[in-house]
């Protein structure tokens, strides 16, 4: 899922200062799961903002709403009838949601409330780590389920490089060498012969380097 982190509240306060009536808009999907932008975080942020402005003698209206998602038209439409009551929206959705809401409500300032970090998994309580960089041409079948694009610093397709030491990347002792992990996994799967096969040059045109991507499904269009 998309992993995001709450923006520091000082930053959000600076963002909203010019506006009088603010809607804090949360999202019930990824940002809820990584505890950054769901209903609970919306409540806390709205309460904190109210207290800040009251304590500083300023008047502001701060309302709260959480949508199922902010990356689908049907959910963003749910606020169409209340949007004119506000001067700005602080969206706690990921970057996708903030932008999609901004496109839908063109005259409404959309302010981000979280920093979108990566695509990742919830490894442990309070720990989310990156696993995928959406390269568009998945090679996980060849690498035993470990991604050399997101987890290898150099994104090599036939690793490891010469920098790996004791299974750690040359970036530092906290970063595992992805290719060490891949070799260990292929060994455990009994597929070390696959490792000997040299991978072909990767098609990077489907990566972000090839420009913003779109997915079109003619079979579902009506």
């Amino acid at each position, binding site marked *: 899922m998309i992993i995001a982190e709450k923006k520091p*509240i000082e930053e959000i306060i600076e963002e909203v200062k010019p506006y009088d009536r603010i809607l804090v808009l949360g999202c019930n999907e990824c940002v809820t799961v990584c505890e950054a932008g769901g209903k609970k975080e919306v409540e806390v942020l709205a*309460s*904190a903002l*109210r*207290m800040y402005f009251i304590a500083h003698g300023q008047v502001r209206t701060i309302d709260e709403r959480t949508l199922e998602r902010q990356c689908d038209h049907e959910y963003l439409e749910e606020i169409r009838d209340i949007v004119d009551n506000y001067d700005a929206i602080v969206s706690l959705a990921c970057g996708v949601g903030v932008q999609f809401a901004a496109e839908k409500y063109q005259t409404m300032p959309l302010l981000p409330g979280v920093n979108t970090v990566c695509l990742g998994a919830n490894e442990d309580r309070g720990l989310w780590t990156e696993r995928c960089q959406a390269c568009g041409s998945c090679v996980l079948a060849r690498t035993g389920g470990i991604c050399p694009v997101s987890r290898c610093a150099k994104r090599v397709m036939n690793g490891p490089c010469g920098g790996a030491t004791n299974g750690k990347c040359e970036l530092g002792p906290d970063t595992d060498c992805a290719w060490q992990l891949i070799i260990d996994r292929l060994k455990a799967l009994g597929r070390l012969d696959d490792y000997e096969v040299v991978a072909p040059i990767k098609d990077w045109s489907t990566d972000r380097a090839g420009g913003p991507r779109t997915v079109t499904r003619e079979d579902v269009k009506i």
Partner: protein
Amino acid sequence: MRLKIPTSFRIVRLPCTGKLDVIHVLRAFEKGADGVFCVGCLEGDCHFNEGNFRARKRIEQAAQILDKVGVGGDRVRMYNLSSGEGPLFAQYATQMVETIKALGPSPVRLMMEKSQAA
């Protein structure tokens, strides 16, 4: 036990301090509270295993937020005691009230009262 406790606070009972969420603390301040104290079981003795640990983390989060908005993180605190320690509760209660009296009224309450008077 006929212990002397100050009367200037209100007790909200929970089945476990693990039920306390950050928003409950913040809302109390929004409504004009000068301080919020969470009294939970001794660490390791929680009937629900880690409820009091969660409460401690949430109190810390609330304190950070209150610092950033200008209310003051010293107005929230976590205490741990056993339900058999009556005199200790009395001592903590007195300590709580004295801490808050020294800090003065919450800026939120002051401003709300000022705007209501105006």
